[in-house]
């Protein structure tokens, strides 16, 4: 096992712990926005997708890359926008509409 891989594993494990810590504090009320918001974060695959789509390795790799970019962008844009839509509905008091 190379040193590079060990470093990646360290980052992965520590990030999982950070995730556990941070997410435990999110109240039940916000669990749906948490899911869609974290979903948008998993769209971080966009980074890999862009590299693969742009490096022009093989035709097949490029095709996969383009589809991956589209999928990941659906995840990113859809995730953030829908989360924002939900969160703007959470209000403490009833707004001026009445």
């Amino acid at each position: 096992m190379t040193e590079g891989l060990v470093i990646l594993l360290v980052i992965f494990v520590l990030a999982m712990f950070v995730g556990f810590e941070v997410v435990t504090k999110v109240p039940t009320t916000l669990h749906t926005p948490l899911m869609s918001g974290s979903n948008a974060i998993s769209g971080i695959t966009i980074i890999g997708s862009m590299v693969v789509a742009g490096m022009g390795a093989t035709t097949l790799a490029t095709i996969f890359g383009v589809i991956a970019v589209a999928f990941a962008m659906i995840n990113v844009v859809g995730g953030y926008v829908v989360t924002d839509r939900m969160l703007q509905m959470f209000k403490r008091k009833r707004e001026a509409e009445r």
Partner: protein
Amino acid sequence: MAGFIALAYLIAASLFIIGLKRLAAPATARQGNFISAIGMLIAIVVTLFDRQILSFQWIVVGGVIGSAMGLWMARAVKMTAMPQMVGILNGFGGGASLLVAAAVWHRLIQPGAFLPVETAVSIYASTLIGGVTLSGSIVAAGKLQEVISGRPLLFRFQHALNLILCLSIGGMGTYMLISPGHPGVFIAMNVVALVLGVLVVIPIGGADMPVVICLLNSYSGLAAAMTGFVISNHGLIIGGALVGASGIILAQIMCRAMNRSFANVLFGGFGAEVAAVAVDRGLAAKGVRETTAEDAAVLLSYSRSVVVAPGYGLAVSQAQHQVRELADLLEKRGVTVKYAIHPVAGRMPGHMNVLLAEADVPYPQLLDMEQINPEFEWTDTVLVIGANDVVNPAARNAPASPIYGMPILDVDRARHIIVLKRSMNPGFAGIENELFYNEKTVMLFGDARKSLTRLIDEVKHV
């Protein structure tokens, strides 16, 4: 330049964490989501400076198509359809990871290229988890949209078949480590993973969907993290790990709220076999007391305190606005109105909260199970809307019941209970609910939205 890009990914990852932290309170949550989105924007922009990228045209094509579709989906989706939306988004995330890893694999098996074993392991992990997430999410979303039956689908030797498929993936994976250049085996391995994704979700019933959606959420993150290992990218690993952790925690919370283990949810096929559990004949013979909208309206209007206990039925009939309208009328008469939210009410964590927030119900009025349970004793009337198992006292006092031990809303401790229900068909799990036969309970049959509209009219005339 490479160092600069790596630093930018670190900033992006930090912004994700800060964003998630801000999600801990409704007042800062929207800002948190925005911060997280900024992190993503930074990650995307700096990736454009990656030296490996030679041409941008295909990135732009995919990016524009994906953004447009994402934007359209996010704008068009109804709040009641949010579980399906999150389900399908999980699927896209998994699909992207699968494709990225597959593309890297294809590049590295070309003549002259070299695929180290470590990279191969992460490639296979990434495509397999991504594949299971993709097909599993499609099935889950189909079940939630009711394109596919929400009932658990069980057949003989199901678990044996799944085990064989897992073993065959393991076998093919090991073979591919030794000689990676076999497209046939690679495709076969991933097809099996896709089939496995379908098979693990179909035996799970609609009411257990919150757990499945959480797990798939977690998988989509783990798949992204594995892709991070494939291309040695810290940003991907951190982002993926955060999501992986988040999904696991939510799934755990859901399981605890149902007093069931992960294994029981995943392999149990809950709701398929309980028809065999004998319905208490004595209960059925007692019959239920049906009421009219007029009587129920009087009961509500002359209560001092009313607690609304919503369930999936509220989402199905999209009655959240009517609930708030009724609550407003009652509050004008001086009635205190609160909402009791069971953690697994609905089809995903927090489902009811989002629906009621859409109807402008202020979130401080929405109380968790632990907060509201002690209050039922002092509550005049509980209005149960389309909830069943989460208010079934059998969970407390019938050891033979499949839901025995599950924490429930103790609505039967209130002075009066009004149950809005479509018909006397047992709930999703097919379990008879003794609450309906309680002397304090009256039933108002019909579609929740229509019943509420009738109640609103009657309350106006009280």
